[in-house]
């Protein structure tokens, strides 16, 4: 449980290089730390502070604002069941009971084998598809209790591993930004030319 690995430090420096100010990289680096350990460790937050020039308390202050950063271990699959109005009317409470019974844990906790974590979520913006849930933030729509059972079976068996990566896996921070599209370490106020991607069009 730890600071960032050598490989991730290299990536972290690359990410920091994308921003005019190092501190702007705090959140991408938190994602990176969460991917590494499955959750954000205290050591990783201190390390990120060192990398971006902030105190550990500042990194923690930023990180704790966001629901999706976890500070304690979570399961490989984080199941967020929506409990807001539309889903509640369409049977999300039943889903939650089903999930609890099936996994033998309460909402908000993790199975002893570390595979599943159940969470109650607020509106996931899919009210037309109620009741909905997310597994590692991948949607499942109009879920019935039976479908939930099947989903859990599939996840446990690894049948969905190509579709749903383990919790914490991030895509965006690993993106490659072509040099001509990257702002780089130039403060915005110092940029005088339009970026290349504007392609001659007038700026907004």
């Amino acid at each position: 449980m730890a600071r960032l690995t050598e490989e991730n430090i290299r990536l972290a420096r690359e990410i920091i290089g994308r921003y005019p100010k190092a501190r702007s990289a705090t959140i991408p680096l938190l994602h990176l730390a969460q991917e590494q350990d499955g959750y954000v460790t205290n050591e990783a937050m201190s390390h990120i502070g060192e990398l971006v020039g902030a105190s550990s308390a500042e990194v923690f202050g930023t990180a704790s604002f966001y629901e999706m950063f976890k500070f304690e271990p979570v399961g490989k699959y984080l199941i967020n069941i929506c409990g807001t109005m539309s889903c509640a009317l369409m049977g999300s409470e039943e889903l939650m009971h089903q999930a609890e019974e099936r996994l033998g844990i309460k909402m908000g906790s993790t199975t002893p084998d570390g595979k599943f974590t159940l969470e109650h979520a607020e509106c996931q913006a899919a009210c037309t598809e109620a009741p909905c849930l997310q597994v590692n933030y991948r949607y499942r729509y109009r879920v019935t209790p039976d479908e939930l059972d099947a989903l859990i079976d599939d996840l446990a068996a690894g049948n969905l591993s190509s579709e749903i990566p383990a919790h914490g896996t991030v895509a965006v921070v690993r993106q490659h930004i072509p040099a001509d599209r990257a702002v780089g370490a130039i403060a915005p106020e110092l940029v005088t030319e339009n970026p290349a991607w504007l392609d001659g069009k007038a700026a907004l």
Partner: protein
Amino acid sequence: MTTIDTTETNDVPPKDPNAVSITINGRTVEARKGDLIIAAADSVDEYIPRFCYHPRMSSVGMCRQCMVEVEGPRGPMMVVSCMTPVAEGQIVRTDTPQVKRAQEGMIELLLANHPLDCPVCDKGGECPLQDQAFSHGAGESRFVEEKRHYEKPIPISDLVFLDRERCILCDRCTRFADEVAGDPLISFTQRGNNTQIMTFPDEPFASYFSGNTVQICPVGALTASPYRFKARPWDLEQRESTCTTCSVGCRTVVQSSRDELLRYQGVDSDPVNWGWLCDKGRFNFQSTNSEDRLSTPQIKSGDSFVTSSWSDALESVARVIRHSREGSVAILGGARGTNEDAFVWGALADAAGITMRDAQLDDGLPASVFSHPQATIDSACAGGTVILLAPDIKEELPVLYLRLRDAVQKKRIRLIEISSHETGLTKYAWKSIRAESGTAAAAMPALLAQADIAAQLASGPVVIVAGRPNLAESASHTMDAVDAVLAVAPSASVLPVLRRGNVRGALSLGLGPRNGNDAAAILNASAKGNVDCLILLGADPLSDIADVDLARRGIAGAKFVVAIDTFLTASASHADVVLPAAAYGEKDGTTMNLEGRVTSVVQKITPHGTSRADWIIAVELMTLLGHESNFTTLSDIQDAMSAAVPGFGSTTTTVAIKRDGIVVSVTPPSSTSASTSVAAPRNSYEFRLDLSRKLFDRAIGTITSPSLANLATEANVFIHPLDLDRVGTAEGTNVRVSNSHSSIVLPVRALSSIPRGTAWVPFNQIGADVRELVRRNESITDVRIESM
């Protein structure tokens, strides 16, 4: 025609382009461009309620309490007055029904989650939330639900407790920690209804300035352990005074109840401390209340002390002085007292022919540092370049650190630091140059000739902050470096940063060395048996002088030692007579800070036991020695001071000086400047010793303050990580630090900010005493470090 009527001529003075005229509640208010409405209103005493706004910090508009109405094109509009700058012709109303409704609504919202535990809250009675709930609140709440609950106060540092239930999230403490102190160790965490101030897990709010957050907290969320449940605000009596813990001279109020000091609070003095205090200055009032204070005179009998009457003790001292050989009486110290103390002791010394005197304990600079043009804190922070040839300002003069840091952050000045190890100001320095002790002066011409530095020096005023960075290095190295800067920038001014609160006053008013006989020379004379009576006036050479061997020999060599002190210090325990002195807060007078600024210090409580102010003791001795003194009251002394000391006019009496004091220019007598010393090159297998002070050490005023006593750290020797390999040892293991004089054992720590070949040891921490290796007659100290 003798008078010019401007209405008849067209010679109207041009309007100040920065002047802005606005109307507040029908009154015309002159403000400056960029001023905030709330500040403009304050300037004419139109009070707008507020919680988050603080004039010494940036505005954040966090609490929304300061809503006012501003006339706009579509009629009156509600704005937050701490975020809205003034504009020409702006019409502001702070008392309309609409404004009242908004303010009452905000109070009601803030109180929704605020526990009404005012009867048991330390803030009750001086609480901005309580006060403004009465003055600007609706009087009752519609909130009947259960309030938010958190664990009641949790310690966030050794000194500060946090009660999250009371917190209204105004962002004052976190802004202070980040913007003012530069220690962002507390932060908002969580979100929404769960938002709370918190430190990082297991990383306490260990800032030297943490006490200020308690003072500016607008509710009882932050409380300081030394004051918790000690008094109610309405039981406190207070007088405005000046802190004399270090030579910055921050303005404070001294508060007491039932004749016991209970709290110091910072007072905003614009040229000095801006309302801030360091934790050492804020909380060391506890030492004044200590049970270990000396309360009666003591006379040595055999190996122990016997309590004596004042008359017997003073008579025995007078008898020794009378029978001492000519020129064999010496006075060390005086920098912890008032100007009046120093002046009367100086008068006594003059009358009795005592020429051996020094208020510094060989840890400052010779008085010739005052003969250069002098800078003030304001002039150093106003613009241009500040060159630091000084100890770590954050450790030794913490509030000066805040001022310099602020000037750098606001891009007014550039710092050039020449230091043998990283300091608190290093990360704010434009250039921070590592120069091994003893080499700064020689390196200076080439350094200042560098194109960018030369251009910077030429671009504006230059201030040299001069002090003794390394106690294991002689003062002449610093003086030579100052001279080297002055050779390049002849118009530079000097801000001397010397140790101890009233050192400048004591040196200026009669306790400075005569004929070059400084503390070291006095102790040397004493060691040779040439001192018949050594008077330690609040001085503890055994604990304070870097050459502890010299201090030991000096005290042992003196035929008779008199200690005038508040505690039985290490040195006082070797005295033949100990006289209890009144401490800070127990006597009136004036003090002089490092700029030469004279401000008042006040008596708030009765002196402990039978202790007396230093000047009273001096007057008694003068009488016993048959000299006329004419000093019966403080104003007698101040009159005599005005008459006798050039530059110390009638403006400097306690009555005349106001909060900000008056900067006087008194140049203390300075002997011929110390000879230039060239440090011998260091042998490559040796380390150059860097001995410097930290804020919290085992100084008597710190260890007798229970809340500060445990803030000193274990003594360590810090070296570069690569040197760790060279010595062949590992982090944390004991090493032998030795030279031809002595040998001690200390744990070694690696610190990559230390240059290779330097061994840094903080002064007077818990563990082996590195001073055993220091000798005054060697201008630098080299040591060997060996694994054991």
